[in-house]
């Protein structure tokens, strides 16, 4: 089995009383695109900051290539932000922007060559046409490519992409996603993409992990998870994506609760349609839903959902990476 690039082990990150990350196990493999799906307040951003070494765990650990993650790993872990216009310094040329990572790293090789290579890899060809331009002189799609070139120039092992296409026009979206997928396929890079866009996951991700209120509540290979979601939260999310047709809409009321007051029992139970419809009662699990917290999904589970209605070992659940059922 290949060694994981990133291993997150029983991670908890608290800010005062707020439990932003409240028990996460996760492994990111080299050469995979893993989509971390969740709404605002689910803890996705805190989790990726911890992977960068920018936020320290309250407990648990984050390992990057076997060593505790800290900012010294930053040349190996790069970031692509949502809004390329805000991410680029308007007073620097494209070549200065892309070279910045190299300069910070005190790169010894040929800088001009590295910058040109990164630009062409990001689809800005020929690179000479872009080197001296300023961000305002190029289009939005090209700006996002510059951001990606700047991230790729240090030849990172892991790219963290936070909603990389959310602020781009619809027609450009596909090209940028195609570029990311292509970089993964040709260089063995791993991409952890944070998004609330399930269509993006369908387009490029190998695996999907769904986060809710500080925990991963469902994980699995993209097709399996999106074709037959098991957790009622994932089901509800999928049902409201306008892109899934023919599914009955299940609009949850309210919003993600305050991470300072995480509900007891299953953290999703106050909004859960399975509990509300009386289904939990029928299955004889309503007490557990309300009062008993679920085990944290393990990092080596290839498919699992943290829900009393599905995970009490009903034959297929959960599945470990080595295959077979526990």
């Amino acid at each position, binding site marked *: 089995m290949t060694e994981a690039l990133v291993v997150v082990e029983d991670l908890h990150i608290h800010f005062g009383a707020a439990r932003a990350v409240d028990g996460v196990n996760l492994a990111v493999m080299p050469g995979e695109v893993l989509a971390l799906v969740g709404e605002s307040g689910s803890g996705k951003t805190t989790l990726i900051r911890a992977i960068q070494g920018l936020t320290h765990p309250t407990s648990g650990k984050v390992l990057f290539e076997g060593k505790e993650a800290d900012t010294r790993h930053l040349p190996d872990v790069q970031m692509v932000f949502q809004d390329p216009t805000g991410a680029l310094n308007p007073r620097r040329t494209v070549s200065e922007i892309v070279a910045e990572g190299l300069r910070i790293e005190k790169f010894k090789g040929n800088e001009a060559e590295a910058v040109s290579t990164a630009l062409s890899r990001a689809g800005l060809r020929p690179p000479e046409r872009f080197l001296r331009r300023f961000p305002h002189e190029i289009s939005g799609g090209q700006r996002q490519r510059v951001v990606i070139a700047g991230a790729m120039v240090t030849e990172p092992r892991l790219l963290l992409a936070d909603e990389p296409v959310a602020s781009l026009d619809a027609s450009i979206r596909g090209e940028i996603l195609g570029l990311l997928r292509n970089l993964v396929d040709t260089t063995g890079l791993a991409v952890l993409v944070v998004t609330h866009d399930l269509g993006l996951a369908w*387009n490029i991700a190998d695996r999907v992990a769904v986060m809710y209120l500080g925990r991963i509540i469902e994980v699995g290979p993209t097709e399996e998870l999106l074709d037959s979601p098991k957790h009622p939260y994932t089901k509800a999310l999928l049902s409201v994506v306008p892109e899934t047709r023919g599914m009955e809409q299940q609009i949850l009321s309210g919003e993600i609760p305050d991470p300072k007051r995480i509900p007891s029992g299953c953290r999703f139970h106050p909004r859960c349609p399975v509990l509300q419809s009386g289904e939990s009662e029928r299955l004889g699990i309503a007490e557990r839903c309300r009062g008993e917290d679920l085990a944290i999904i393990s990092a080596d589970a290839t498919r699992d959902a943290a829900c009393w209605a599905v995970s009490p070992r009903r034959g297929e659940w959960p599945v470990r990476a080595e295959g077979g059922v526990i």
Partner: protein
Amino acid sequence: MTALLSVRDLTVTYRTSQGEVPAVRGVSFELEPGGSLGLAGESGCGKSTMANAILRLLPAGTTTTGEVLLGEEDVLTMKPGRLRAVRWTGAAIVFQGALHALNPVQRVIDQITEPIILHKTEPDEKAAEKRAVDLLGQVGIPANRAEDYPHQLSGGQRQRVLIAMALACDPDLLIADEPTTALDLMVQAQVLAVLEKLRGERQLSMIFITHDLSVLTYVCDRLAVMYAGRIVERGPSDQVFERPTHPYTRALAAAFPTIGDRESRMNPSGLKGDPPDPAALPAGCPFHPRCPDAIDRCRDAEPPLLPSGPAQEAACILARP
């Protein structure tokens, strides 16, 4: 039946340091009472400019020609007093970015009662407040939150306050410009459901603007796709989405994949190039440089909207019924 809104050959030209920039270049459409029209397109295609032009909200120095008939009256030639009355009571607009559209130092109830009192659509202040609380209830905000300030509400709640506010004077037409773009998936669904409910309950007509075609298909009966300041395809929304006849619509429809569709799995689809600069539009069909199907003839002239299917029209020489 007379149309509630009838836009005829609308053009909008901005005056900028680079000269005159045509943002909307001859758009015509009609909206029936209770109907809903979705306007799709990318940044710079003129969709927001058009929405603002309908209520004459564009900056001074902008040239607008054509007609915007709201009922029998042309909004573009109205006297200022009449225009003020028509805004809010005839047509109201919900902007994107709920964070910025609300006054941070005023309680939400006061922000909703303000237009009601100004337009005297309720007899007194007390009645206005009662109406404001009712409206908040209709968009799913409990009465005990009415005294809150905007920062005490979540993004989705703020967006719903904006909808309640737009409905304050019971307009016939609601224009919603990307009302759900900044919202989370579930909250977006909640807001769309509120709009859908209101439309059913009060025969409200709606113009809904976004770049996400599939959202429009879900909310609107009819769909118009804009590119470079013009409508390039229109028709019943399901039909336009499922059987697009303009290559640009096809690209937009494919940009957000249908989950479960094997063809789009690991195969994101997009268009080469970028939306054109309105100040320097390509000759001929403005879409031809990005069009996967373009032929030589596409460079010659800009094609008009012609029938391309039952009740469907497209501005493409290759689109045939």
